């Protein structure tokens, strides 16, 4: 039996009919079918997701979207959203599905950390006048170097260093699969990664052949569904990443509905057109750390030991011990994804309730690897909830080699975080395969906006380094002495390895 929905509209779309000149641009732009035209524009409030597409493109600025505030009697325990979710479940009997990262009111620890600066005794450095170095290498480093002196007194290096990937800016793009996002998104990311000297990440959906020329700037992912994984794919990369977990949905697999699997996605993922692409929750060949080690070395064999292998895990309670095991299992890079990390689709109950904040996970992993004397053996990439260059600087000071920008990169390309990625109707041409929507994102424009974002973050990071009186990113990395906490309890401060504000060195 199909029930009529009793859900009230979440948003109210107001049209200023005095200003509206009936150009119908809003009708054409709305991909959720909210705008109708009879003799004038009539919105169907219930269908609005507040993606802001119509608002942005209305030439007369005649549209405003507001929250449907007065729908319920005030109650702090039973919020409108809670009530609506219950209604949805009563109507459908299903798992509530959501897109993007955890939006709840958990503490954002970045906002409780403050950065130091120089005054008098050590001069700050002007990044516009002095060199300021951000170059970063991802990969396993030896603990020490050995040199040999030849008979004529020339010194040379004996130690063989394992493959390293160079980043010109310590931020890489987050893993977003072709399928979850459009090919134009992948194109934009690849072009921007190349231009900015960093990496994009294929996610678990393979790499479209058109993007093979960008191999030097691509992390190719191997996930539990093994979609699009073949020898050439592994070798068309700067780095290979084994995805164990994702911050937005730790312990949960993925599902790309068959209707999104068109000809191109089918070829890239190596599955039939129209078939569902289901990534199991675990890798069915990894039930232990020994199994993971086997896969790491299988990949190293397949790539002739020329690529660093990364393992991505979500930030869960025991993340430090898990990370230590992963490094000892042979991973060259470890990516930790916090619970603010994005997703194309996740069960709401998982996204909103599982995992731990990335700040604590990062601090715990870095400290654990140092205590075990294996910090040099792997680079740490911090993902999930990095919003700006300030977060990036704080993450690096806590111990990250580089950070990931996923959601922020999507926003740069147009995303308004409406959290409807799983519907396939993305009005900005990002999380959709509908050709008329995909067309909306021009890869030239998208990549330029992404490069601008990274350029802006680099400049800001250089300003922070300069104010700290250091001229190289490695002097910030892990230098928690340059951070102070405000409004944090002593246990949290201890876990972060950070002193409270007001305490000197």
């Amino acid at each position, binding site marked *: 039996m199909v029930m009529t929905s009793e859900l009230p509209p979440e948003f109210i779309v107001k049209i200023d009919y005095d200003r509206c000149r009936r150009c119908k641009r809003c009708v054409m732009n709305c991909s959720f079918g909210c705008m109708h035209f009879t003799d004038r524009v009539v919105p169907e409030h219930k269908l609005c997701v507040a993606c802001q597409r119509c608002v942005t493109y209305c030439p007369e600025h005649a549209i405003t979207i507001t929250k449907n505030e007065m729908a319920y009697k005030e109650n702090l325990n039973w919020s409108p959203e809670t009530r609506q979710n219950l209604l949805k479940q009563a109507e459908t009997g299903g798992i509530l599905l959501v897109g993007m990262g955890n939006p709840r009111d958990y503490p954002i620890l970045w906002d409780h950390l403050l950065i130091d600066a120089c005054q008098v*005794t050590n001069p700050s450095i002007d990044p516009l006048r002095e060199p300021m*170095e951000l170059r970063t290498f991802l990969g396993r480093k030896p603990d020490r170097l050995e*040199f040999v002196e030849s008979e004529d007194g020339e010194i*040379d290096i004996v*130690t063989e260093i394992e493959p390293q990937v160079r980043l010109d800016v310590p931020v890489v793009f987050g893993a977003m699969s072709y399928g979850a996002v459009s090919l134009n998104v992948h194109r934009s990311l690849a072009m921007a990664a190349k231009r900015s000297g960093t990496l994009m990440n294929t996610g678990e959906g393979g790499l479209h052949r058109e993007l093979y020329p960008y191999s030097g700037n691509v992390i190719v992912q191997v996930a539990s569904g093994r979609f699009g994984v073949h020898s050439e794919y592994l070798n068309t990369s700067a780095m290979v990443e084994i995805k164990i977990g994702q911050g937005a949905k730790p312990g949960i697999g993925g599902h790309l509905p068959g209707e999104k699997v068109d000809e191109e996605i089918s070829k890239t993922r190596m599955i039939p057109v129209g078939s569902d692409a289901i990534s199991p929750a675990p890798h069915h060949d990894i039930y232990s750390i020994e199994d993971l080690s086997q896969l790491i070395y299988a990949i190293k064999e397949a790539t002739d030991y020329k690529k660093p292998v990364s393992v991505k895990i979500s930030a869960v309670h025991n993340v430090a011990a898990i990370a230590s095991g992963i490094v000892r299992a042979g991973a060259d890079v470890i990516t930790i994804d916090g619970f603010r990390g994005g997703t194309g689709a996740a069960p709401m109950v998982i996204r909103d309730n599982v995992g731990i904040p990335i700040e604590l996970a990062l601090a715990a992993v870095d400290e654990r690897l*140092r205590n075990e004397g294996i910090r040099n053996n792997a680079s740490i990439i911090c993902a999930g909830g990095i919003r700006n260059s300030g977060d990036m600087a704080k993450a690096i000071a806590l111990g990250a080699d580089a950070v990931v920008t996923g959601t922020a990169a999507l926003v740069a390309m147009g995303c308004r975080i409406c959290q409807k990625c799983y519907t396939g109707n993305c009005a900005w041409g990002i999380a959709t395969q509908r050709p008329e929507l995909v067309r909306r994102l021009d890869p030239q424009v998208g990549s330029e906006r992404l490069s601008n974002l990274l350029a802006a973050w680099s400049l800001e990071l250089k300003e922070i380094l300069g104010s700290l009186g250091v*001229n*190289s990113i490695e002097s910030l990395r892990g230098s928690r002495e340059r951070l102070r906490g405000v409004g944090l309890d002593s246990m949290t401060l201890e876990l972060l390895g950070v002193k409270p504000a007001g305490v000197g*060195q």
Partner: protein
Amino acid sequence: MRGNCYIPSGCSVSGIMSESGRRQDGNAIIKSIALMHDRANGLGGGFAAYGIYPRRSDLYAFHMMFDDIVAKERCEEHFKDRFDIVLDEEIPTRPGGAYEGMTAGRYDEEGVQPITDPPILWRYFMDIPEAKTKFVSDREYVVEKVMEINSTIDGAFVASSGKNMGAFKGVGYPEDIGVFYKLGEYKAYTWTAHGRFPTNTPGWWGGAHPFCLLDWSIVHNGEISSYGINKRYLEPFGYRMELRTDTEVVAYLFDLLVRRHNLPIELAAKVLASPFWVDIDRMPDRERRIATAIRQVYGSALLNGPFSIILGHSRGMVGFNDRIKLRPMTCARKDDMLYMSSEESAIREIAPDLDEVWSPRAGTPVIGELDEGVV
């Protein structure tokens, strides 16, 4: 003060070395550092001297500072189980002695003493029982013991722990400290000196420069802005930063890189003050590979922030600056003598007639080495 304050510092440095191993008394180095009186503020001064104990050159000479007799007794108990003490004696001092130079008479005018409230200063010449070094080298053993004493015995502090060398330091102007310790009566082939201007807290005797470990000594003008990561990098290797000042990491980094990782001193200096990537990218292949590897592997050991440093060790002396030379250093040569100082005037003061005077480039080490077969 120890354990609860952190002391960034301004300062002056000076170093004199005879590469042929000729030993000279401490009057010259005192005169040199005295000229830079105004770079210090009376809260710390010190000297390191190499070659001062030739008759006991095979023994570890521990220069100790004790807050009180209880600390001394506890430390001696500690020593007894771990070393063979061949000789122990008070370090000779001249309480109330003040430097008779251009600043002479100021203490009479002000009615104060130049050096007040010294700790108990004692030195121990010690051997290591063979049984103790079955699994570790002699030097590793000494490092462990120094870390142990500094962090576990309240009121006891190791000022230096090398062979045939020693540190003489305390609270006061460096020239007065030199007179206090009667440095005119010691002969050394390498002398380094430091005058201190701590900027936010009174100095304590142990916190004065030089900082020493084994035969390494560091005098340092500047502030290590990368202290936080340098400290975290060193800790897993067993070093304990107990002195609450940034300078000690420099001594430990040299110990790690040169003694334990066996890097040549030139390369160790490249770790601490690496070339910039723009310069590395232009280097010939072999040098580029070395410089790149150093930055990849030892990035956490890079010293950032303003500094000029003189490192002393048994076989020589190394002076170097931070990567953009935010602190001064001038070097000079005359015959077998190598001089390094914060100011050229402090060199001219003791050697007016020089063969060569230059300001080393940022990040480029100046290396003095004893001639082969000397000492």
